[in-house]
């Protein structure tokens, strides 16, 4: 009995392994494409200007200027029937234009103003009433409690979606919690990659920049790359030059009065827990996406989750191409609140 049963089970298990392998090499840059969009500031109030910059990667010999990129803020609210991140017309009708779009211009970087009613369209405030109707349902916040103004950019080659995190405050919590949130919440700061280094064998930093190789590796070699970012304080420290969660102009004027600066790593931030209706402190998770014009990454994206946010680096294994020559690398860092940073690198395979 045991033998046929085990045979049967093995057959069943083998047979059940039926999900097709569809893993594409998303890290490989074979054609010009947008890898990331950074908004500066990373979080903005309605009516304030914001600068949007696209990171465009291209293989050797291809243009990566982004001159043909068209930008627009999409004003269409996403219906509850839409399972994606944005209203479908934001993408489908991007080329047609219309009242759903607020054009921002062309180029790799543009500047625009966050619409004054953004917190009503995409935030926690009741949206404008439709003709004959009543004010509708506010938008649900994202996992970090944030709200986003959709940005669409694209050219004839394709479209991409980005966003600007909106500083809209918080609703759905008791008044005391709302006050606490208002006093302690600090807008997001875009994260930055401090350094990328090769840690296999003799550790060495890959110097930033693409004009000249920042490091060299042997053809076909498997190297472990590590990207690092700044360590952020868990508790507010007045006088450290960072205006972080819990600090404000009253409690720490030195850090928060003039052009307050946040931490470029995994920040602590305040978040309204929708289940408990209380304001709580959380840490940002940080993810790093890896791209190259040659070679293969073991993972397309690595990072530290919120529970592991004390770590300030993440590693990936890159197998260098077997052909000699220059290879360009891009590392894009994203935090949980939508902040984006990147570093462009060049490596010589020789």
């Amino acid at each position: 009995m045991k033998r046929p049963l085990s045979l049967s089970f093995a057959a069943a298990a083998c047979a059940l392994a039926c999900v097709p392998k569809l893993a594409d090499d998303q890290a490989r840059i074979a054609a010009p494409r947008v890898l990331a969009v950074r908004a500066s500031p990373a979080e903005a109030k309605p009516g304030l200007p914001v600068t949007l910059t696209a990171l465009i990667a291209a293989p050797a010999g291809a243009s990566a200027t982004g001159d043909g990129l068209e930008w627009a803020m999409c004003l269409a609210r996403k219906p509850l029937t839409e399972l994606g991140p944005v209203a479908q017309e934001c993408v489908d009708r991007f080329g047609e234009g219309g009242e759903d779009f607020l054009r921002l211009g062309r180029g790799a970087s543009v500047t625009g103003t966050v619409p004054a009613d953004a917190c009503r369209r995409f935030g926690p405030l009741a949206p404008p009433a439709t003709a004959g109707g009543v004010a509708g349902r506010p938008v649900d916040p994202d996992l970090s409690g944030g709200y986003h103004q959709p940005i669409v950019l694209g050219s004839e080659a394709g479209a991409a979606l980005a966003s600007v995190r909106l500083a809209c405050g918080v609703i759905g919590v008791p008044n005391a919690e709302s006050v606490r949130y208002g006093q302690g919440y600090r807008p997001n700061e875009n994260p930055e990659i401090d350094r990328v280094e090769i840690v296999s064998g003799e550790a060495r930093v890959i110097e930033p920049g693409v004009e000249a190789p920042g490091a060299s590796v042997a053809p076909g070699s498997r190297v472990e790359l590590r990207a690092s970012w700044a360590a952020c304080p868990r508790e507010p420290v007045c006088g450290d030059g960072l205006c972080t969660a819990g600090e404000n102009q009253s409690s720490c004027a030195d850090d928060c009065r003039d052009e307050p600066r946040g931490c470029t790593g995994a920040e602590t931030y305040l978040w309204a827990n929708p289940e408990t209706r209380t304001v709580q402190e959380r840490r940002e998770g940080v993810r790093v996406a890896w791209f190259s014009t040659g070679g293969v990454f073991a993972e397309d994206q690595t990072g530290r989750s919120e529970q592991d946010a004390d770590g300030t680096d993440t590693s990936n294994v890159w197998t260098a191409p077997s052909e000699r020559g220059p290879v360009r690398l891009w590392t894009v860092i994203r935090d949980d609140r939508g902040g984006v940073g990147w570093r462009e690198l060049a490596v010589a395979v020789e």
Partner: protein
Amino acid sequence: MLGARLRRAFALAVATTLVPSGARAQPAPARGEAPKPRLTKPPELVDFVEAVYPEDELREGRAATVVLELAISAAGAVEAAVVVKGAGAAFDAAAVDAARRFTFRPAEVDHKPAPVKITYRYVFTPKAAVETTGKLRGVVLDKASGRPLAGVAVEVDGVGRVVTNAEGEFAFDDVPVGEAKVTLSRSDLTPLRTQETVEAGRTLEARYSVELPAPEGAADDEDKDDFEVVVLAPKLVKQTVSTEVGAEEARRVPGTQGDVLKVVENLPGVARASAGSGQLVVWGAAPQDTRTYVGAVRVPMLYHFGGLRSVVHNDRVASVELVPGGYGAAYGRGLGGLVRVTTREPARDRLHGSAQLDLLDASAAVTAPIGERLSFAISARRSHVADAARLLEDQSFQAFFTLPEYHDGQARLRYQLAPNEWVEVGGMLSGDRQSRTQPSNDPANRVSETRTLRFERYDVAYHKQLADGAEVDVAPWYGHDVGGRAGDFGGVPTSVETESHLVGLRAEWRGRLAEAWTARAGLDLELVQSESNRSGSITSPPREGDAYVFGRAPADQVSADVWKSVIASAAPYAETSWGLFRDRVVLTPGVRLEPYFISVDRRKPHDPNAPDLGAYLSDVAIQPRFAARWASSERLTYKAAVGLYRQPPLPDDLSAIFGNPALGISTGTHYVGGAELRATSDLAMETNVFHTTSDELVARNPSSSPRVGEALLQQGEGRSVGAQFLLRREKGAGRFFGWIAYTILRSERKDSPGARWRLFDYDQTHVLTALASYDLGAGFEVGARARVASGYPRTPLQYIYFDARSNRYEPTLGVYNTDRIPVFLQLDVRVAKRVKLSGSELEVYLDVQNVTNRGNPEEIAYAPDYSHRRYILGLPILPILGARWSF
């Protein structure tokens, strides 16, 4: 004898003249003479003798009145009868003959008995014969398979003995009114005696289900109540479209791994569920629209997670019936079909039991009597397939088809109050858990999901068969459900948990009001009190009508809500069947009055700075149902049914954030028509066409600016049209059984008044199932099942873009449900061998699914950048070896 059959000779005696016979001859007295004798007391008829109605006159329906002059002696005897006014020789002679035997209390003249002459009018009325007998008709069935038993001698004491025909039928036309003792016997059966109550002029229809002894070569197994009266009641018209399969037959169906209730998947009208879903999609209705009952108790699901096993142990099932639509007034609260599981009664003869082990699970069952009146049954099952799978290093196969963990158990205790009266207490429980984890170094790509459902049911069932054959059933029950789903997909957590307490009651009387008039009336009550807790994306899990793409992470916008709800309804119902033209036409009108009460504790999302306001809804509606049957011949029957149906919202949909607390009752209409041809006692063919409509269905609010508390709206419509065909050879005394079931349908939905009709997510145009099982003898049995089914519809992709915020590619979608998963085609085989051991039996079976190892597409999977797609394939060849030991 003729006199005995006369209902009552309608005799009218009228003394038109009353003359003392002696006085008539005397002259009138002169003045001063003694006074004339005076009649002080007329004669009084004491013993009436019924005249023999002349046969020729009765046959021709003639009435007549014969006027007689009767000479009554002083002793009260009729000394002479003379026809004064005749009505023909036959009538005259009959009247004179009867009258001469009359006995009177003598007349009195001057207070003394005296002879007199009277005029007597004897009236003959050709009325129906006086009934002093009733009819007993019925059928003897094999309890296990439900097939008719021929050659069974049925004897009624003092009346006679007949033998059942090939259809298992018998009939006695002249059974004296009162208690009749009936004996059933056959050479291979121990005689069974029972007692029936026969009423004058009425036909008592009996159905005897008896348990056959195990076939030669097989051991005694299961409950061996050799003979057992299961049902005796006036015939009630069956549902217009229903398929019932007995446990013994169902257990041998290939591809079901010996699970009795999995036979439902093979019946006409049922869509093929995608691998691992275990959903029951009937006539294009959503899975939750079809209600499942075990006895009188509603259960939340028929199959454990994954659809590998049903929730009721085989040994506890007597039969299962699927009614895909058009059912009668006794059931409601659902727009789809109906599944009814009839349970076995605990054994009353001796200890029986079984143990079963195969790749999926292990189970055991025991049933036995305790003394004369008490008996019990208990069973349990636990899965081990998921535990064993964890031993494998490669777990990638669980990404789509996650192996479930499950267990279930049932216990019943029956007390026989009287031969036709019992009370039973019992309960059942079931637990399911399905968990998968897809690890990744990238937090955004980690996937974990855990689904659980635990339910319990406790009930008390009382049954009594009354002297007139009517039956009464009362079954109050309590249930407790805890269901949950927790997961994290692409960094978006989802948590849904609902705990419900249910209280139900089904009380019913069914009986005969007249010879061709049966009825049932009852009360169907159900109350569901739920507390739900949900957090996560409103789009996760997706619901029917969502443009869902397999593998696509949900949107990261999240919320949370906790809400309580009560949904209650108490529906009295009544249904009656009139048989016309000797039951060749049967009309069954019914009505169900269903008042609903729905309460939700929050009308709007919770505002911590303001008190919550609740939402309440009450609703009453009459749901008429009507069915008709016309037997154009003994073998061919046409049938049709129409009915209104209503269904309350799901507690999960009553959230002020994720749903709508103001949701009301959805409505639907079923139209069914068809024909049934019974070629032989075992072979039947049935075709039905159906059309269902539904209104006020719950769907997502399509507005880009929905009102608060209206994430769902009740403005959807549905329609389904199709036909189903069944050619079935039942498992009779022969070695072969099987059927071919084919369903063609189109099911559509419209989510809002302005929307276009779209294909329903569970639409399956063609479903064909052909299965057969053959007993080779010597305990060997082989079977095969072939299934062909259209793939479920899917929505094609339209445009792909890069979401720079999440570092993912996303699609926009084309016209909803205009693509399809390719056709499913699968062949399963089953081989079994029964070995008789001392006092027990061992059955070893091998059930091989997808014996041709065909790669059947079950879902469409896309590359991360949606640049290409592949199909996720279902179960390739899957041999399941198992053994069952029973005693």
